[in-house]
């Protein structure tokens, strides 16, 4: 090979690198290791974590411990899928293109929107992109976001828009949901986007219609970050006027994986399609008239439009979109409804049992699968106790909402059995009684 190239040895090929920037020594990194050693190393790391197979998980807050049917896990492991890249060359990528087209259809059917892209990074960045797209569309520079939107989404939003001269203002919360009156007072002719989460971070169901109408009356775009599993039970956001629907798709057949890879859902109305960020797959025909699929409207994208692109996104989360497509296909109409309903049922049972055990719910708004409670002591301490009983307790809220001292956000998915819930409740009950006793002394 060197002969063909006309080089004496390989180092000649690196002669272009200026002497001063050449690495004189070996890199200081671990290895080399063979498969056997790698496996041993990562098994050890894995053992240092408590995992959701061994612990009953009541954490939600953006990542959910839903059941993944084995048929769903199997498909993204097909290496024709996972070792391919963005289907720029449609003729050799019909498999993935068709799967994304199906994914796009599912997202549209769940949300009621007209057009979905092929995925964003996650729920947070999807919402941020939506806010930017909205402001761009109506040419305004203020974003109103409910304080009941996931705090890490709001943090990401702030980062994303920080460079773009957009202002973010937060709408206060009232009894667990967005304060509609406050929102009405805040929205103005400079408001480009009103951002809501449905169900919101606390699991509560927002009076979305009213908020949407108020926003749109002022000419702002109404953006809803919706939990797709809840859409088995709740009306599609299109029905209450959403202009853009985003969401976290991890619930759709994707393991929690310490928070990534996730799946950013992004859908909008057809009239805004030219402003859509990210990839989009469309159907077409080949020279023989057979149906086929291609990436379309690529002129919106960075690789063509560069500094005027609708977003800078390139690599996205396609494999996760595939997983979601398989998940929705496998569950189908009935299964999807059932998952949705099971989450609802179990969460309501859990909240009621906790109430009976002496733990009051924080709010009374209708909710889906998450709810907040107030404890007589720091939530972290209860969690230590729960861990001893193989339960991963809920999320302490104080770090995110300083006013919610000793409050905890609990999530109950269809995976939690009555037995799991009863175990949670009995540990909590014991703990609460102890606290009460301690307080009385």
């Amino acid at each position: 090979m060197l002969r063909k190239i006309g080089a004496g040895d390989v180092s000649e090929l690196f002669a272009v690198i200026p002497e001063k920037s050449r690495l004189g020594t070996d890199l200081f990194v671990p290895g080399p290791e063979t498969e056997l050693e790698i496996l041993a190393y990562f098994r050890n790391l894995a053992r240092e974590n408590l995992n959701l197979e061994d612990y009953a998980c009541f954490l939600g807050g953006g990542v959910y411990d839903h059941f993944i049917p084995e048929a769903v896990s199997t498909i993204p492991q097909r290496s024709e899928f996972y070792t391919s890249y963005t289907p720029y060359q449609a003729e050799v990528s019909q498999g993935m293109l068709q799967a994304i087209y199906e994914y796009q259809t599912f997202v549209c059917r769940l949300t009621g929107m007209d057009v979905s892209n092929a995925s964003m990074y996650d729920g947070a960045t999807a919402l941020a992109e939506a806010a930017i797209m909205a402001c761009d569309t109506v040419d305004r520079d203020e974003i109103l976001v409910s304080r009941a939107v996931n705090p890490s989404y709001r943090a990401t939003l702030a980062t994303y828009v920080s460079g773009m001269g957009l202002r973010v203002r937060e709408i206060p919360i009232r009894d667990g949901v967005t304060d509609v009156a406050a929102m009405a007072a805040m929205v103005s002719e400079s408001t480009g986007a009103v951002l809501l989460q449905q169900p919101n971070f606390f699991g509560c169901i927002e009076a979305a219609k009213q908020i949407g109408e108020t926003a749109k009356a002022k000419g702002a775009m109404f953006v809803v970050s919706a939990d797709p599993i809840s859409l088995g039970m709740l009306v599609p956001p299109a029905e209450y006027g959403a202009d853009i629907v985003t969401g976290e798709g991890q619930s759709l057949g994707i393991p929690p994986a310490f928070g990534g890879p996730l799946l950013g859902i992004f859908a909008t109305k057809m009239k805004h399609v030219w402003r859509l960020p990210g990839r989009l797959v469309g159907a077409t025909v080949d020279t023989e008239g057979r149906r086929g699929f291609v990436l379309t409207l690529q002129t919106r994208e960075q690789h063509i439009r560069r500094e005027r692109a609708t977003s800078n996104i390139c690599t996205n989360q396609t494999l996760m979109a595939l997983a979601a497509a398989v998940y929705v296909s496998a569950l189908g109409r009935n299964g999807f409804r059932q998952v949705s309903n099971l989450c609802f049922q179990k969460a309501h049972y859990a909240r009621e049992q906790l109430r009976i055990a002496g733990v009051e719910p924080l709010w009374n708004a209708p909710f889906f699968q998450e709810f907040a409670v107030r404890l007589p002591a720091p939530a972290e301490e209860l969690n230590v106790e729960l861990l001893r009983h193989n339960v991963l307790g809920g999320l302490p809220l104080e770090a995110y909402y300083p006013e919610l001292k000793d409050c905890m956000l609990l999530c109950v998915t269809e995976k939690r059995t009555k037995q799991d819930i009863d175990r949670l409740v009995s540990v909590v009950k014991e703990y609460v009684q102890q606290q009460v006793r301690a307080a009385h002394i």
Partner: protein
Amino acid sequence: MFNSKYEPLIFELSAEGRSGVALPPSDVPETKAEASIPREMLRQDLPLPEVGEVDVIRHFISLSQRNFGVDTGFYPLGSCTMKYNPKINERVAGLAGLRELHPLQPADTCQGALRLMYELSEALAEIGGMDAVTLQPAAGALGELTGMLMVRAYHERAGEGSRRVVIIPDSAHGTNPATAVRCGFEALNVPSNERGTVDIKKFKELLGPHVAGVMLTNPNTLGLFETEILEICDMAHRRGALMYCDGANMNAILGQSRPGDMGFDVMHFNLHKTFSTPHGGGGPGAGAVGVKKTLQPFLPSPTIEKSDKEYRLNFNMPESIGRVHSFYGNFSVLVRALAYIRANGPAGLRAISETAVLNANYVRSRLLDDYDVPYGDRCMHEFVASAKRQKDENSVRALDIAKRIIDFGFHPPTIYFPLVVEEALMIEPVETESLQTLDAFVDAMRQIAQEAREDPEIVKTAPHNAPVTRLDEALAARRLDVKWTPGG
């Protein structure tokens, strides 16, 4: 090559009453939804397909067989570094203790995960010659955004918020200018010189007090090392601008040279390229960002800190640009990247760049008779050929050649990028391919060049051996059909 059976859409397979998965009945006393949720919020119709498990499996397996991946064959997609993804990485990423983890677990219940991320950031800092690394960005473009927002924050803290221009070569990847704009900068093009590298004279002219930074890819997208990189960095620094390195091409210089040592202040890694995590049909990727000490305070929060005996997430970063992801990035991708680094070790990482560069130069040399390669005498890990000759002489375009190579069982190269090369065919053979494979590819490419001369129709009507013939992209854009509708 492919499963050429026409595969209906999953919706077209639906029949009432079927379902792929059974779920257990509810084991708790019933709560009536109507009693708890306002009726107008409750959904009526749920228009999803009804299909049995066997049909779902067959459908998606059939689709997989209509898709080309690295495991299907040679995939010289330039700029994308489509190297082989070792199976052991999939195995470790699938361990329950690394996959069935909630990101909000208390830190003492996920020490392994935190340690993993810590060790990966350390390794990446070392590889890039940087002082600190964040793993939060979910892909290269988000890494760019993260990095350039830090550049902005840096200048703002220094009271130089008026620096609003970023210099970017015309050969740059589209994400660079798109990112710059997203950060509130103006993207200013610096042209390439006749050697394909930054025109340093023009560059000097563009530098000024309004310049916040320079985004360079090194080696650049022509597969050429920016030989004047030390001068460039020096000039930029002297004018108060920061140097951003798009590290998508790190595969070329792993263990040979480090952006940090060249003078870059901030860079992103494409873990899915350089560190062999699968590309997933378009993602997930991971775009870790490394910075020098000066930029460290601006890193996204949380960072991972190591104390005497534990790892923890540090959210207390007053100067941070904030979050760029719901949690800590694409963790499962990070697992694979660390496995890859550990598998290779210091010598192995160096061998990667050596073989990648050797392979690219070999393929380049063998194609020189038949294709123009406008820039460079040699290349790093990739090179950009041109079908200009074929276009001028036989009206055969880069697109035609790309489609024709499919018939030989190879994935096409990247085409029409970078923009500075007419009819570009960007070829990156990567280090994991054998000489046999490279030779077979070269032979096919040469045969296509011959066909272009002697029988151009066969090239222009390619592919002939794929599940579909050439697809009408114009029609797709004109009659936008982006979701299935019944009977539609």
